[in-house]
């Protein structure tokens, strides 16, 4: 069972309350596809991913980024039960989407960077530590149902 300090709970709730899920989701997924281009393998039918500008302007990517952020929101609202909350999503990513779980870390690193850019100085080392702990729990839960 994951033990969260009061600081960690407050920090996670605070960060997500400040995020525009559409803007942040789209920016994060686009960044991931640009910085780690091999991740584009999962988006073959998402239209034009030819270059960075195309990726950043692609409405299907933007929409999917929003979906991802709303998925993270479920973890934010169920911090004491992330593993159970994500059981179905884990099965989906493994058996239907066939996503290599290493990609979850790549996406979470991109989210960290996007959030850092938005929060600026407020994204201190302690805040980052809490945020990355949360993301690592999410990543672990998403990988749990892979066999």
């Amino acid at each position: 069972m994951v033990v969260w300090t009061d600081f960690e709970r407050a920090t996670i709730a605070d960060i997500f309350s400040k995020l525009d899920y559409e803007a942040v989701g789209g920016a994060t997924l686009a960044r991931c596809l640009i910085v780690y281009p091999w991740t584009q393998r999962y988006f073959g039918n998402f239209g034009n991913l030819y270059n960075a500008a195309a990726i950043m302007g692609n409405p299907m990517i933007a929409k999917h980024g929003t979906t991802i952020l709303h998925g993270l929101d479920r973890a934010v609202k169920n911090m004491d039960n992330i593993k159970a909350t994500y059981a179905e999503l884990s099965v989906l990513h493994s058996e239907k989407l066939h996503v290599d779980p290493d990609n979850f870390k790549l996406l979470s690193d991109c989210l960290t960077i996007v959030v850092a850019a938005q929060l600026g100085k407020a994204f201190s080392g302690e805040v980052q530590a809490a945020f990355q702990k949360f993301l690592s729990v999410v990543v672990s839960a998403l990988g749990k149902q892979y066999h």
Partner: protein
Amino acid sequence: SLSSKDKDAVKALWGKIADKAEEIGADALGRMLAVYPQTKTYFSHWKDLSPGSAPVNKHGKTIMGGLVDAVASIDDLNAGLLALSELHAFTLRVDPANFKILSHCILVQLAVKFPKDFTPEVHLSYDKFFSAVARALAEKYR
């Protein structure tokens, strides 16, 4: 490997970074010690590992000095970082996995400091650059 586009992107932002190099180095190092506490094991000889402390500031400056050398040697990192590679390999013996950790923290610091400049394409070039620096630093390990 680093394309000329990558090298240009690195050098373009580096001008702004160089102006605040000490601050960025110190903040990135402090961030790393907070987010990845296992890295503190390399600094057990410091009295104070908190962000903004004298040893952290001084060492952040040292690290950024190394990166200045790396940018200057961007066309031949193995040659330019030879002495630093030997230092890390034989004296410091830092596990190379930590290069990735510090790189991540520097990237985060760049996003904090330069949110508009640190576009996905610039992020890509810097990620590639830091990976290349890490490879050059690990050259002499074995």
